[in-house]
């Protein structure tokens, strides 16, 4: 089901299509228009069968002779040209470098092509969906902010990396983990534990939780980057490992879980190779504070932003299962959110020695 990786030649010809838009329009004295698929909630659908978020068919024309769009049109062309340059130079680059490469002052004014990176990042996402090419295929790396430790052996650029022998620090997951770049040589783990925060990952790694329970420990430090999600998906696919997600008990934690499971709204086109529909939510559940007798004073009061975000999540089609509705409503009713760190209130090793073992023993997770 996973789409084959596009060759450089194919991507290059798609990029050249942008130039054709301008040349054709100029020839016919028409407003040049690039048709871009819409990347918002209104244009994603949840496929209940495949259990992933998929992008819809809606597109929007980005035209040049339109005051509201002229700047973005110009920016899209610039980023396209910069990607072409990447092919010619045979390099990959980061989002930030790409921003610096394309930033300059417009001749005869003090206006910049891009004022900040927040302006250039979405243009790259636009190009990805427009050209139906992944970021990596455009030679742009996503940031690498994830770590892995556990009984897995990887081959990266010919180096054999045994993730069981990397001490407490683990291996930094690169942003591109496609089979061409990274090979999974061996994996004897029984399951994958994907942890939201570095603090808890460090705790588990330090306590050698993975050794005792024979699992792979992964973290993405917040919203997991593409590399981490893709590697999890590959381990899941290639070694049939169940995936458990451990996040804070707040609306953002729920959303991180759902991104791992079904894919994100913004990057819905990535779902087919990133989403893990079988991933399970192991904690922190809004029922846990009672079950594990966490005192009320280690909770944090939900603010207005939290509550409105929780209500948005309640309305997402992929959270419509009865147990999920109950889970989220229970959090709203309690008026409190809990961080994973709050478990340290019991004792420093509570997560390793009590919480997770009991969860796994009782198969206490949500799907």
């Amino acid at each position, binding site marked *: 089901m996973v789409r084959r990786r596009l060759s450089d030649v194919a991507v290059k010809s798609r*990029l*050249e299509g*942008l*130039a*054709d838009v*301008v*040349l054709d329009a*100029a020839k016919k*004295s028409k*407003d040049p228009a690039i048709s871009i698929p819409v990347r918002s909630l209104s244009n994603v659908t949840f496929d209940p069968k495949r259990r992933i978020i998929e992008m819809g068919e809606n597109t929007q024309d980005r035209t*040049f*002779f339109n*005051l509201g769009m*002229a*700047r973005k*049109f*110009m920016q899209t*062309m*610039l980023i*396209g*040209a910069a990607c*072409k*340059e990447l092919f010619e130079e045979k390099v990959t680059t980061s989002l930030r470098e790409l921003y610096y490469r394309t*930033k*300059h*002052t*417009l*001749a*005869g*004014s*003090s*206006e*910049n*092509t891009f*004022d*900040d*990176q927040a302006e250039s990042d979405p243009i790259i996402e636009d190009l990805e969906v427009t050209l139906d090419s992944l970021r990596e295929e455009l030679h742009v790396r996503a940031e690498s902010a994830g770590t892995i430790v556990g009984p897995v052996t990887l081959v990266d650029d010919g180096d054999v990396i045994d993730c069981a022998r990397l001490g407490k620090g683990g291996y930094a997951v690169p942003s591109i983990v496609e089979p061409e770049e990274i090979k999974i040589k061996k994996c004897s783990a029984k399951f994958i534990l994907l942890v939201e925060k570095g603090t808890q990952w460090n705790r588990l790694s330090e306590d050698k939780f993975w050794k005792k329970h024979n699992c792979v420990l992964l973290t993405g430090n917040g919203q997991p980057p593409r590399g981490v999600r893709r590697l999890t998906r590959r381990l899941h696919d290639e070694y049939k490992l169940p995936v458990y997600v451990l996040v804070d008990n707040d609306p953002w934690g729920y959303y991180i879980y759902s991104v791992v499971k079904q894919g994100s709204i913004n990057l819905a086109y990535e779902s087919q190779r990133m989403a893990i529909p079988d991933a399970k939510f192991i904690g922190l559940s809004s029922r846990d504070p009672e079950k594990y007798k966490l005192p009320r004073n280690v909770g944090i009061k939900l603010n207005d932003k939290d509550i409105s975000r929780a209500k948005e999540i309640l309305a997402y089609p992929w959270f419509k299962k009865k147990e999920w509705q109950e889970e989220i409503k229970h959090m709203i009713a309690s008026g409190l959110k809990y961080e994973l760190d709050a478990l340290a209130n019991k004792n420093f090793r509570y997560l390793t020695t009590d919480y997770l073992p009991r969860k796994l023993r009782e198969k206490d997770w949500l799907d």
Partner: protein
Amino acid sequence: MPRGARERNRLRSAAQFPLRPPRPSVKSLGFETRVAREKRTTQKDPPPNETKAAPEIAQKLAAKQREISISEFFTKNRHLLGFDSPRRALLTAVKEAVDNALDACEEAEIKPEVAVKIEAVANGAEPPASVFQAERFRVTVEDNGPGIVKEQISKIFAKLLYGSKFHRLRMSRGQQGIGISAAGMYGQLTTGKPTRVISRIGSKKQAHYMEIALDTKKNEPIVGVNRTTDWDRPHGTSVSIEMEGRYAEGRQSIEEYLEQTSIANPHVVLTYVSPKGETKTYPAAVAVLPHAPKEIKPHPHGIELGILLKMLQDTPSRWVSGFLSSDFSRVSPRLAAQICREAGIDPKAKPRRLGGAEAEALYKVIQKTKIMAPPTDCLSPIGEPQILAGLAKQIRADFYTAVTRRPAVYRGNPFVIEAGLAFGSGNFAQKQKEAAEEGPKAEGEDNDKEVEMARLMRFANRVPLLYQQSACAIHKSVIETNWRSYGVGQSRGALPQGPMVIFVHMASVWVPFTSESKEAIASYDEILKEVKLALQEAGRRLGVYVRRRELAQAEFKRRNIFALYIPEVAAATRKLKGKAVDIEALKARLQKMAVKLTGGEKTDALLKKNNPVAQLPSTIVAGEENIKQQAPNDKQTDKRKKRQ
């Protein structure tokens, strides 16, 4: 003594205070002090139970009670006159001397030329390391005024409350005749040096040189050196005081005072030699002197009961009715008779014989009676063209406007409010150009701009007010004006934001200051209202200008946006497609489409025609031509060379 009578006596003595300054004031001061002493005594010793002891205590107290001279009083309360810190003392001395010089010149209808010189003086053997560390200065102020006859010199410069301005209602800078002698006294107290004066009343007479000290107990001058001297000026006065002080620059400095004086008095030539030895000249911007204000009699609604009592004592009129009609403005003989009738006083009664109760009745009736507003020819506002000239001369801006209100009245005193605005940094066109030539901006650099507050310049009778801004009615009116509706940013309860100078002037025969140091105007409703009306008119004109400028900017941007992006799009297309693309042809095609889509040349024509600012009254808009004059071209070429 019954309470009422004592009250009246106090009022009477207070009323006499200006007439014969030292004596009556001592009485009232002595009264205050006694109360204070009694308090202290009662705190020390427990109050005696027997009434017999009372006379003894009174005797004891009487031994301690003695006269206090006005000079002694001010020695201890120098802050009341603006001599509280060395820095401010230096400024106050300059201010008093310059105010006197300008008043004297204008009264003699001479175009004023005033020179101010401040030198650091060594205190002891070693000279100060820098002027900012110096603690002693010599302030010399020279004018080309009519000069002072030699008999009067000593009294004017070394006797407190001696002068020509207090006894008449006429618009002038100084009012009480305290200022310059207080400055001399301060110098004498801090350095022991007398005030040096040179004065010459005409080219045929010799100049007179005098060194005068002040007997602080008797409030009398002590003349030291007293001789004729050679002086190159045909007429004028020079006063020189050595005093403790501190030199500072920036806000509330002598330089700021002189700059503001020059703005509000564009007919004056000022020269300033700073302690650093730098000479700065503030040239005149208008050739005509302001018309001399007329002296008026007080308006009946503007006086207090005490003043009425004093006037009753001093009048040359024999009858009360005559007193009313000849000593006040706007009281006709008929109205005088009516007032007497209503107060139950015989119109032919002798004013000096009028008892306290009768005077009080008379006062009440006067306040109730409808009387015509006072005449306003006693005022000499600066005038809109003069304010514009003054602002344009000293402040670099893009937009200037000035408003002179019609005269209004508070408590029987006529006054005029004038407002001026100077907006922009004076290089709008230049900036636009520079921005276009400037190199690329770094990320977040645009947001670095600090929020600049408007600068408020307050004036009373053409004198800049530099201290106590927030206590002043002008400041209150400025912050209560809604500047946002004129396109200027403003936080709640603060001055408006942006590169702007707000000029407000109050001209009146009697400016109601909140204290003797004359720094803040009291908040009478009528004054607040007039200031706001003046600011609103100026603000409306500013609003027209600001909106017009914004519109021009938006149009400029819209017209050029496609032209700006076309080269980028064409270059990117070529990069993507390769050398087969004819970049110039592509640019030309796209440009042609852009012109067609934005309405072509019609828009240009429309933009130029529509220029409402040119039609605003009393307003200057700095155009590109002005800017070119101010900024020499070689500066720009320099910049370009550097980049190359």
